């Protein structure tokens, strides 16, 4: 048995008393999941997993050097998985083999306490690692449901089901037909068009009004600032279904007025209604983000600009706007996503001609559980990721240009 030369680590962990049980417990956890997934039963899974963990810990620690050991664990569990579950078993086996091998070394070399000061007690180290594990689990449970839908959207069948062909990674089990359906079916293209029309207009309105409101409310001489702020933010706080009911009656009257007085077509007035309703929902997000950025804004700059003879409008566009732009952009992004994802208000305010993507997904789920919904969801997830990445990159670039360090 080799003694590790880590700083502050004088005693090598006890194999039988520490490394073995910990790895076995880790293995039992994997076994539990695998047992449930294969239908072999939780208890059997736990036993097999614990045994595998214990064997790996013992063999790796006593007989093999690090690299060979890791590879052996991967190969051994991988083959075991292949025998039990075929192709998908191999993948799961390789992953759990890698995890078990890592765990055995991680525990036995004492690396688990590498990030802690040497004087930390066993209890503190345990809590530190439990805490990291809980954080990891939270991230996992946040992301796992979203990740599950991505392979399902390539289903060759018309159901939300992992078919046996999919599980054995047979190409016949996968298809792009739901994506084809999305891009060719008028039932999906019209809502897509509507969403793409409604969201940008709603965003433009909420950004313009929201930014102005935030600037006004950040002036100390405005009376009743807090009350006005509370009213403006209320669409975010009031339950959506209540705003939606109110909006339904309000915008019905407004729609009739627009049609009768200005002679607008039903479809045009319908779009205006939904855009205004979504703008009202987006404004609070803009106000909050812009207000937050204005806290760091130095008001002597506007006075300096005025001193140099700039009109308030010029000051706003040339001095204040560039400095608060990151807040405005992230507010715009929130407003856009609010409108793009919104289903309750549009169900009330919109007519069928203004059906948006979330609305179509909602009725699709209720009436016909079709994986096209998953294909749309996958596309939306990818678009959201790209959008957020772009905004983040732009923000960093502008901060670099202004000599600020990215935060």
């Amino acid at each position, binding site marked *: 048995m080799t003694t590790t030369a880590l700083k502050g680590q004088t005693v090598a962990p006890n194999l039988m008393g520490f490394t073995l049980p910990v790895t076995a417990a880790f293995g039992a956890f994997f076994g539990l999941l695998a047992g449930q997934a294969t239908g072999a039963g939780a208890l059997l899974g736990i036993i097999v997993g614990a045994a595998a963990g214990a064997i790996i810990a013992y063999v790796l620690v006593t007989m093999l050097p690090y690299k060979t050991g890791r590879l052996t664990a991967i190969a051994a569990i991988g083959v075991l998985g292949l025998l039990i579950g075929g192709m998908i078993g191999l993948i799961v086996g390789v992953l759990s083999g890698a995890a078990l091998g890592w765990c055995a070394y991680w525990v036995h070399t004492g690396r688990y306490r590498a990030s802690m000061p040497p004087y930390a007690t066993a209890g503190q180290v345990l809590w530190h690692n439990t805490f990291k594990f809980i954080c990891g689990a939270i991230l996992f449970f946040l992301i796992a449901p979203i990740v599950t839908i991505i392979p399902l959207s390539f289903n060759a*069948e*018309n*159901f*939300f*089901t992992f078919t046996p062909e999919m599980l054995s990674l047979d190409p016949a089990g996968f298809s792009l037909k739901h994506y084809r359906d999305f891009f060719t079916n008028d039932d999906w293209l019209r809502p897509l068009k509507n969403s793409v029309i409604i969201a940008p207009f709603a965003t433009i309105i909420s950004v313009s009004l929201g930014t102005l409101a935030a600037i006004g409310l950040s002036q100390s001489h405005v009376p009743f600032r807090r009350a006005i702020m509370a009213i403006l933010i209320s669409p975010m706080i009031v339950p959506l279904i209540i705003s939606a009911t109110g909006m*339904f*009656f309000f915008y*019905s*009257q407004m*729609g*009739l007025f627009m049609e009768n007085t200005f002679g607008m077509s*039903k479809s045009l007035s319908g779009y205006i209604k939904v855009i205004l309703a979504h703008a009202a929902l987006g404004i609070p997000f803009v106000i909050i983000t812009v207000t937050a950025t204005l806290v760091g804004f130095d008001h002597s700059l506007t006075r300096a600009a005025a001193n140099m003879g700039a009109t308030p409008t010029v000051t706003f566009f040339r001095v204040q706007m560039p400095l608060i732009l990151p807040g405005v952009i992230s507010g715009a992004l929130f407003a856009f996503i609010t409108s793009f994802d919104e289903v309750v208000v549009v169900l009330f305010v919109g*007519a*069928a*001609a203004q*059906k948006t993507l979330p609305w179509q997904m909602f*009725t*699709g*789920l*209720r*009436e*016909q*559980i079709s994986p096209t919904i998953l294909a749309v969801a996958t596309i939306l997830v990818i678009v959201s990721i790209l959008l957020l990445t772009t905004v983040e990159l732009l923000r960093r670039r502008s901060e670099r240009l202004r000599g600020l360090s990215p935060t």
Partner: protein
Amino acid sequence: MKLTTTLMASTAMVMAGTSAFADAHMASEMTIVSWGGAYSASQKAAYHDPYSEANGVTIVNDESSAEAVAKLRAMSEAGNVTWDVVDVVAADAIRLCDEGLALEIDFDTQLANGDDGSTASEDFGDLLVSDCFIPQIVYSTTAGYRTDLVGDTPPTSICAMFDLEAYPGMRSLEKRPINNMEWALLCDGVAKADVYDVLETEAGQSQAFAKLDTIKDNVVWWSAGADTPQLLADGEVIMGTTYNGRLFALIEEQNQPVGMLWDAQVFDLDGWIIPTGLSPEREARALDYVKFATDTQRLADQAMYISYGPARASSAPLVGQHATLGIDMAQHMPTDPENAKNTFLYNYEWWADYRDDLDAKFQAWLSQ
């Protein structure tokens, strides 16, 4: 060249002029509300497309039938009814008619006569359950089972749903008392004719709940028609109830290993209502549309796309083959004699009186 253009342009103008004239008293755009999915698709193919082609009307489809009653109430209160024709089940139509939200129809003058010469009211017969409701299809709520998961003796009776010994596994039932209470009593030895009499009593209701209790732990409750097909395809349940058209699509179009259990299927009706409070042009257009969409041939055409029975007696002989699969549709209709050997008659009036009370009891029982 110039002459040709002028001629063509003037011809077009004249034609546009005449068609505009002919329809001057009718709206040129209408919103039709329906259930979505394969059902809306069948209506589009059988009714909407031929109608818009013949009359140059733009038809917008709104898939809101599930909340039609609530939405129509709200629209009428707001004085802004945006729907022209609404597809609802008979029970909803009765409610809407009672509340004055649906237009009363004079069937014999406002609807087409049957192809066999019968008047509309003779042709629809008993299916005219309300003065506002123009029946369109007969559908049934019935059960389907996974042929590969029920063992060697596939179920032949609805009571298999309550037989956990012979058919262990999960089943799916609709999350409402309607149908489930009746089936529970039937399988607890109550005669078909006595079901509603027994269900009227406190003891009868307890009897039905007691029967449902025996399988409660093995039931997945569904609320959307698409749920049971998904659960059956997943193998998550071994049998479950849903609308017969959903099971047809699952079996014939998706080729899933599922069998139909027509026993004690419960017939229900689906059809059109026209909301009250439309402008005269829109109302004229809506009436013109339903007259077209509920004639003998159109109702028979719909059966080419979905396995729901046409509501007119005169349509039945015209039911042909499925539009894409080319299989005979008659044998898949809930009304086919072979399938309708044992049917259960849903009692609208009884449920109109007891629905609220039993809904509350059912929800309370569910949450116990």
